[in-house]
């Protein structure tokens, strides 16, 4: 139920904050997703989607920081 998956915004539809949606690709499967809770989301952003609603714009810097930290032998597990 709390399952949420990342997808990439291909196209934004509308400008009204309440009804603005995005065409979002989930590995090739495309769905129209409500963007009301992520007003800053733009085309080509990756967002986290739950129950048809975008909950967050994924922070690419934070995402790569974790992987770089884990992948770096001199900073092992820190």
């Amino acid at each position: 139920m709390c399952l949420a998956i990342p997808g990439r915004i291909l196209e934004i539809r509308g400008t009204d904050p309440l009804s603005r949606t995005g065409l979002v690709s989930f590995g090739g499967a495309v769905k129209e997703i409500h963007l009301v809770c992520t007003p800053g989301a733009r085309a080509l952003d990756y967002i986290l989607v739950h129950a048809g609603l975008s909950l967050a714009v994924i922070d690419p810097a934070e995402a790569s920081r974790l992987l770089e930290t884990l992948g770096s032998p001199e900073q092992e597990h820190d």
Partner: protein
Amino acid sequence: MKYLDEYRDAGLSRKLLDGIRSLVTRPWVLMEVCGGQTHGIVRHGIDQLLPPEVELVHGPGCPVCVTPVRMIDRAHAIAGRSDVIFCSFGDMLRVPGSESDLLTLKSRGAAIRVVYSPLDCLRIARENPEREVVFFAIGFETTAPANAILAWQAREQGLTNLSLLVAHVRVPPAMVSILESPDNRVQGFLGPGHVCTVVGYEEYEPLAARHRVPVVITGFEPVDLLQGILLVLRQLEEGRSEVENQYPRVVRREGNIVARQWIDRVFEECDREWRGAGWIAGSGYRLRPGFEAHDAEKRFDLSGVISAAPGPCLSGQILQGAKKPHDCPAFGHACTPEHPLGPTMVSSEGACAAYYLCGRHRDSRRP
């Protein structure tokens, strides 16, 4: 898929496992709060790869599982009316009520629809003005913004035929309930990543300090889960009890402010009944005054709905971390995903379904 595949990397997972093995000096019991985390742990075999000192018990974070029979029976009573189109997430249809489940009712002709998003109900209500459209609004904080926007839009658009049967729950009071149970064994938590994406983790800070329990807000992929476990264990070994954020690519301390505003506009906190745990103060959301016209419990007379006492299913104890699925004599015999006796075998996030689907028919740690 980007932001999934890289967090399923075997090399990084092995590295984290090595780190866990070299860190642990004594037995520890950790609880992953979310059912989605339970499934990730069992599906990827993480519980079997951990050193024997580390035990994972499975938490209450499956909203389908914790919704009490009383609410299932209320849903059944509403969905059985000839003037109603009843909308629900798919998992709820097979959860047994006192007499039957919603899927059986659907097979007898009731108008029950599975929706992907709560907001799909706006269209269904517009297209069916002569019918009452009711959405079964279950879920944790993760789902609350979508349900709040549904109620708000129903009111704003004058959809007088659209209402919500609200059974919303909140995670922190359930964690406190587990910690304050005399049978509690949990010493550290993997916190709910997607719940905290919405509401943040400020509320967890006093909880961690008061109960001296580490909480690491954790994602759902193997690398996330292993790093969350490592961070909890490091705190335990060092005698710390803080809130840490393993999942900063989507979780901020304050959460998603816009989503929180939607929740606050529409919902207020209330006491809520949980399967297995009973009533927990402040553990739910209900519609605020001003939304009575869209509250299914006020629109329909449900006074005649009487629920039976719970059957042999151990889901209540499993959801509290007191039992494991294979402790239940019915597990894998009388109770399977095809013929579930309780919600933890039904839901895609239920611990019993995870154990059954991944072949955990007995406790591999016992001789």
